[in-house]
């Protein structure tokens, strides 16, 4: 009896270690941000199948999800990512600036600025749109409360801010002062500035605060589908920003691990018809216009501008607007003085 118990224990421990060892045929680690979970779960299965048909090898793709900025930080600190698929180029570029993990030209290595799928910023309103919100202009009305997280701490909130800024700049024909007043007015309508996108979603969805929630298009679809079917509606503004979540191979890691070939194929396959369709099903806009047409019904036409064209890239937008002493700081100061 004693012997058999001991054997079982030893056997159990042995399987525990063997199981983690024998599964290492080819293993990739994809470090990504929060809203891509559902998409990559399906894409990984699809790629695994594709690769085993092509090469006969089994590929297992591990996922790690979290806030885009903190995920980048982890890779810089040594998280062994083969590929990163983050929310904004600014975060990916940190891998180069802080740790020299990728070359300077990383974003031009794949088509479409290395963004196989894109998204944009839309407005989520309550059922029936009781405040009749149609466009960015309605967000500065006195009777409207807006929910958006704090751009100081949330990457998604920066997209929100820049989308509104781009719209206003266009509306006022490039008049920076008027644009500034517009954004300032908008933030006066924000009752609570949550620190992250998830907290802001809860504020709007669970706590029922606010009339309109500025959100990623894919997240907005997900909220509508999963959190409260029929309780919310998506309003697409006339102009919004093209959010390009970029992907890249982490060169230093794949060269050390010898996984470059698979890692590059993994990202390359994101541009295949199959993957593009998967992205569309998960509410990302496919970068391939042909596949995009198949999803024309779910993605209403909206005039999209690029951050590079209006703000001169992420680094510049960050410096002008969000760093200490930037435009957003003076807006907050102005509001608190009232």
């Amino acid at each position: 009896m004693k012997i058999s118990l001991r054997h079982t224990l030893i056997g159990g421990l042995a399987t525990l270690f063997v199981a983690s060892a024998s599964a290492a045929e080819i293993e990739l680690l994809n470090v990504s941000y929060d809203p891509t979970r559902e998409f990559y779960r399906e894409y990984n299965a699809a790629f695994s199948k594709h690769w085993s048909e092509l090469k006969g090898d089994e590929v297992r793709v591990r996922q790690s999800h979290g806030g885009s900025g903190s995920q980048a930080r982890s890779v810089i600190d040594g998280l062994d990512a083969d590929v990163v698929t983050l929310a904004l180029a600014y975060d990916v570029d940190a891998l180069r600036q802080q740790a020299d993990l990728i070359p300077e030209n990383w974003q031009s290595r794949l088509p479409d600025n290395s963004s196989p799928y894109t998204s944009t910023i839309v407005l989520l309103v309550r059922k029936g749109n009781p405040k009749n919100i149609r466009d960015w202009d309605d967000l500065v009305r006195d009777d409207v409360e807006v929910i958006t997280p704090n751009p100081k701490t949330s990457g998604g909130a920066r997209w929100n801010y820049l989308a509104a800024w781009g719209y206003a700049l266009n509306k006022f024909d490039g008049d920076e002062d008027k644009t500034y007043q517009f954004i300032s007015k908008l933030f006066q309508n924000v009752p609570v500035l949550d620190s992250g996108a998830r907290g802001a979603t809860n504020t709007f969805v669970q706590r029922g605060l606010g009339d309109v929630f500025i959100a990623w298009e894919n997240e907005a679809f997900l909220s509508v589908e999963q959190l409260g079917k029929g309780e919310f509606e998506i309003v697409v503004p006339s102009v919004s920003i093209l959010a390009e979540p970029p992907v890249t191979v982490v060169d230093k890691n794949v060269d050390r691990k010898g996984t470059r070939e698979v890692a590059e194929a993994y990202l390359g396959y994101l541009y295949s018809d199959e993957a593009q369709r998967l992205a569309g099903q998960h509410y990302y806009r496919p970068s391939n216009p042909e596949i995009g047409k198949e999803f024309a019904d779910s993605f209403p036409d909206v005039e999209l501008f690029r951050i590079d064209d209006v703000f001169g890239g992420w680094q510049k937008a960050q410096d002008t607007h969000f760093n200490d002493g930037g435009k957003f700081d003076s807006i907050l100061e102005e509001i608190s003085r009232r």
Partner: protein
Amino acid sequence: MTTTTASGVSQQHEANPELSARWRRATEEPVWIRWTLITIALTFLGLFLVLPLLVVLYGAFEQGLGVWFAAINEPDAWAAIRLSLLVVVIVVPINVLFGVAAAWAIAKHEFRGKPILISLIDMPFAISPVVVGLIFVILFGSQGWLGPWLAAHDIRIIFAVPGIIIVIAFGTMPFIARELIPLMQQQGKEEEEASLTLGANGWKTFWYVTLPNIKWGLIYGIILCNARALGEFGAVAVVSGRIRGETNTMPLHIEVLYNEYMFTAAFAVSSLLTGLALVTIAIKSFVEWLDERSRESTAISHEGAVS
């Protein structure tokens, strides 16, 4: 000492009803104060303990046992459970070793800097778990002090299982030592000295004299340490890298599920973790009860010997 006085007093009560009535008046509050205190305590317990517990259980089993089982019986969930148990199996023995050694040194020996050692042992309680995680990132991260050396030798510590074990061992370090130090100090070293003068060596003394004396405290410390090792979140979140099926412990896996809008699954794994905690508490109460009983029986046998 205090217990004997109290029981002596209560015996007096029974002997003299008038005196006992006066005693009561002096030591007990009016009925309304008692009830207010009880109501406050129960309301707090109900709101902050029982209600959340019920919510977890309700959320977990709302859609039936089948759904609950499906949520648990999933590779990533199993990996998380396995990792959490592996951590416990490694961390608890390390902390037993450390706790006993530290308590032994502090309670049975005099040396310079003892107060410093005692405060150092308490440090993991005082430091926020997130800071604990960051300390090890700064130490072992590839931008950190030892990072380049570790990378050159292909040793992975953070964003891998060793890092998780290290931060949890750090966070749970004080539990056993803290439990043993007052106990061993209270017991003094007379029995050990007696054993040594009777010719037993140090190891024998520890095994036959000290260990039986601290047995219950040690078990209690192990239980607390175990509970905390299973539940630790903050520090692990910093060093784990959140690789699913690999470096997600149970609490981290719950957060992952919650963030994926998989509320039922999140609650199912939560209920499992809560279940483990409840089992821990049950074992703890049982151990206390055993402890009590063994003390009573020794007390009775002592009394018998005296009379």
